[in-house]
């Protein structure tokens, strides 16, 4: 159901979006998002039925290509912009997940 203007769940949604907000940001966004949600809620008030629509403006061309290996980026090229990568072949490094 539509959210009420005054209770936009900013902390829960920011966590879902993997965004860390400062308390000041959270306050500003909560007010702005409540206003925006009220604005877009004109859509929720309108009555539209029918089958579940396409996700885009029309049907996506149903083209298939041959199931064959084709030229692509090397692993090194694909990871050349990784902030922390090393080794041969190149691998990305992330913070430890399992203690």
């Amino acid at each position, binding site marked *: *159901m*539509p*959210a009420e203007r005054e209770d*936009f*769940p*900013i902390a829960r*949604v*920011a966590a*879902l*979006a*993997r*965004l*860390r*907000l400062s308390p000041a*940001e959270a306050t500003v*966004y909560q007010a*702005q*998002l409540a*206003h*925006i*949600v009220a*604005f*877009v*809620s*004109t*859509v*929720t008030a*309108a009555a*539209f*039925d*029918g089958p*579940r*629509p*396409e*996700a*885009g*403006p*029309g049907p*996506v*061309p149903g*083209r298939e*290509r041959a199931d064959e290996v084709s030229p692509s*980026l090397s692993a090194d*090229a*694909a*990871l*050349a*912009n*990784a*902030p*922390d990568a090393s080794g041969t072949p190149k691998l*990305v490094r*992330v*913070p*430890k*997940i399992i203690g």
Partner: protein
Amino acid sequence: MDGTRDTAGDLRTAFIDGATTATAICEAALARITARHRELGAMLAVDGASALRRAAALDALPDRRLAGPLAAVPVAVKDNICTAGLTTTAGSRTLADFVPPYSATAVERLERAGAIVIGKTNCDEFAMGSSSEHSAFGAVRNPWDPARTPGGSSGGSAAAVAAGLVPVALGSDTGGSVRQPAALCGCVGVRPTYGRVSRHGLVAFASSLDQIGPLTLRVRDAAAVLRAIAGQDDADATSAEAPVPDWEAALDGDVRGCRIGVPTHLFGSSLDAEVAAAVSSALDVLASKGARVQEITLAHADLAVPVYYLVATAEASSNLARYDGVRYGHRAGGEGGLRAMYEQSRAGGFGAEVKRRIILGTFVLSAGYYEAYYLKAQRARAHIAAGFTSALAAVDLIALPTSPTPAFPLGERLQDPVAMYLSDIFTVGASLAGLPALSVPCGFTAAGLPVGLQLIGRPFDEATLLRAADAYEGETGFWRLAPSGAGRSGGA
């Protein structure tokens, strides 16, 4: 001539005829960019060395006629379109150092047509904005009035063309990001039919809406650029196999019998009176040339802005999930584990508007809200598209103002996101319906600010759009007027 009103066609002809060289053309464009770079903020990167190497290669060709339909034409590319070896930031801090290992298909095709990529243009971060103020690298200024925005998100591309830095730029249009800045800067901007131009190499914002399109001084140039970049591409499954005609060759100035529908019921109180007058005069001109202008109704179009901001932000929240500080982009922290690294990297890498849209998009896709917001918006989108289809069964084109107002002052709408979103009120409908649309200059306000006329056509019928716009342009010639800083007298 100072070169600021040389069209792509002029430059190619001069190059083919031997009146000039590609090197001289590039050097002149680079000099104009250097002279106005700080003032306008339109460019984020300039690759003069590569451009001049490519120009020298064109000059060395034994037969210049083989150099392609855009031979020796300097082109600026919006910075959310990948260029191999040249930084592509999408206006975001998170991609400040991103150097793509490949070029977008549209860029490859431009170069194959003989164009010379000279640099990258500033834009709203990840193309999210209507003023080009949401760039991590500073705002773009409007060449007609530097205290005002050039529109957005392709504001750098529009400002670069309007100021005469380059005759052609590429932009991307999700909800109006080519057409609206084109209108506010007084140049031509085309949003092709969805699927007409490959999105391969375009930094994704909202994948069911994004399209790459040209910004140019003249309609004729837009037709030539569109032909160069259009066509099916194996790297984009949504690109269409529709034939790519020679639109430029079909421009004959004849608009007789063309039925143009005008949905005046959408012209609310937010429509500026001078914009309304300029658009009305433009329709009179088209009628005087034989077009049949008539009133039409566009069902559900009044819901287009809220529907657009539900659909586009949902897709953005999904597309931008990839910026997690692992494979590319800004990385912060590391203390506190993987999740903390994600959250800190994204918080530090994204600007305010991008965060706002990610949060809205995440919200409308989240459990308990998906059906009320996202699914409802998708259903409404289908009804809006059906409204366009119905209208375009009775007319060949739909005419609207491109923007409800002329260029607005920098900062005016930054603190009011809804006011900023309403800048797109006349452009988002065609985006949702996947239709081709363009903006062509149609006059000036008393303060000398450009106004754009928007024309919307049937799917893959860019031909009718371009013919009508060319006929109008030929009758009026607003493209010849340049902002005073571009070395010519100001607009009317």
